[in-house]
């Protein structure tokens, strides 16, 4: 039976009023130092009853609060696998590298994942790949073999990243929600574009680039990889013919500008969910909005620590959902 999200959406509707808006971010940016910025965030409901003073601890707490809240309002968590699966693949990279170097994964594992991180680490360290989810087994074998034979960490990462993108695309195709489909498509397409740009800069071969890219509907990876094997301008020329024409300026500027373009694009598409009373869309939009908010706060707080100018930060700030 399909889950009814009416209760969850009603709770989300109220929580949306507490999201940070563009004005709140500017106030945060104008705070004289990190403690003042944290005080402002606490006034907005961030943190808990304990007086958290460390920015990273506050952000981790907010991430945990977000997923605890989602766990409370939605019983079938599988619908959000497309958001949590990248953490599993990150944990897989950590596990493979730690196992081959005979190290402990302390502090490197992400806990907001579909699989239990320690269970995953244990399966990899005992080479019991059948204990891993089916979509992870082949890439784990391939990445482990590649790392043991070549000691090339980049190749290992590439194999796992590709498997991650492919699985996210599959999850997107399985979903009947437009926002989830778009997010998954954009996840893979932006990954492919980043691979193309980086490969063009490091002069990688066509075969290597094609091997790293994941199939998606909005890009022809044959053409994109061929363009990346030529030069950066060929990538831009190809992208001008695709749905990502609007991102070309951002790609020319930098990869972080492109990431900002992706986040802003997604935020813009999600805005309609603010008034959608049914379905999983508003919940997904809220999660992405909160993730976006945390990215913005992390950027501002690290800018305070590193004494970056307000202008530099403003250029990188994402537009907010509310």
């Amino acid at each position, binding site marked *: 039976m399909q889950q009814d999200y*009416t*209760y969850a959406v009603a709770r989300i509707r109220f929580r949306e009023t507490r999201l940070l808006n563009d004005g709140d971010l500017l106030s945060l940016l104008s705070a004289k130092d990190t403690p003042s910025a944290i005080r402002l965030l606490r006034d907005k409901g961030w943190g808990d009853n304990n007086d958290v003073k460390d920015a990273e601890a506050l952000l981790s707490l907010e991430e945990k609060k977000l997923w605890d809240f989602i766990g409370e309002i939605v019983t079938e968590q599988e619908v959000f696998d497309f958001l949590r699966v990248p953490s599993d693949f990150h944990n897989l990279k950590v596990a493979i590298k730690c196992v081959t170097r005979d190290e402990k994964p302390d502090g490197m594992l992400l806990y907001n994942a579909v699989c239990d991180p320690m269970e995953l680490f244990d399966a990899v360290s005992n080479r019991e790949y059948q204990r891993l989810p089916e979509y992870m087994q082949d890439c784990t074998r391939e990445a482990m073999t590649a790392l043991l034979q070549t000691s090339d960490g980049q190749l290992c990462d590439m194999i796992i990243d590709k498997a991650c993108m492919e699985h996210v695309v599959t999850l997107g195709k399985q979903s009947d929600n437009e926002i989830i489909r778009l997010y998954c498509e954009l996840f893979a397409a932006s990954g492919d574009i980043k691979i193309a740009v980086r490969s063009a800069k490091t002069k990688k071969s066509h075969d290597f680039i094609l091997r790293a890219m994941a199939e998606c509907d909005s890009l022809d990876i044959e053409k994109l990889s061929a363009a990346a094997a030529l030069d950066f301008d060929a990538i831009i020329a190809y992208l001008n013919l695709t749905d990502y024409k609007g991102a070309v300026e951002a790609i020319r500027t930098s990869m972080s500008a492109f990431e900002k373009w992706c986040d802003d694009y997604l935020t813009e598409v999600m805005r309609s969910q603010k008034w959608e009373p*049914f379905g999983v869309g508003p919940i997904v939009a809220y999660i992405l909005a909160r993730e976006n908010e945390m990215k913005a706060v992390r950027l501002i707080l690290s800018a305070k620590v590193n004494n970056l100018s307000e202008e530099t930060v403003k250029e990188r700030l994402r537009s907010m959902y509310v």
Partner: protein
Amino acid sequence: MSAFFQNSGLFFALLGAAFATLMAGIGSAIGVGKAGVAASGVLAEEPSLFGKVLIFQLLPATQGIYGLLVGILILSNVGLIGGAKEITVLQGLLYFAASLPIAFCGLYSAIYQSKCAVAGIGTVAKKPDQFGKAILMPAMVETYAILALLISMLAIIGIAGM
């Protein structure tokens, strides 16, 4: 068999009363339930909005009352409440036909009104000061339940005078 049909006027009239009460009641139960779920969601976050969300939840309840009203009217006219009457097959079928507007319109308008009420509850959760405007939207759906009730009642009164 023909004797059964000749004496089945009361049966058809009772079927009409049951149909009106049942269909409109089902619609209201679904509607109030759906709006109640959304109202509970908002209350979990902001208990002070109880009075406002309760009104939204109650909006789809009226169709069930309209169905009940039509049901009672039919029962009263055919003598099942307040004394026996002779009801012909034609009269029985007419009472059944008279129950159809509120039965179907009650069912569907309550379900659609609840969707509108859920959206209104979302609006009030975000902007409590917009309660007055938000309540108007689901109230519009009520118009069609009232129109159906009117036709059902006029038909029943008309049949009684035949």
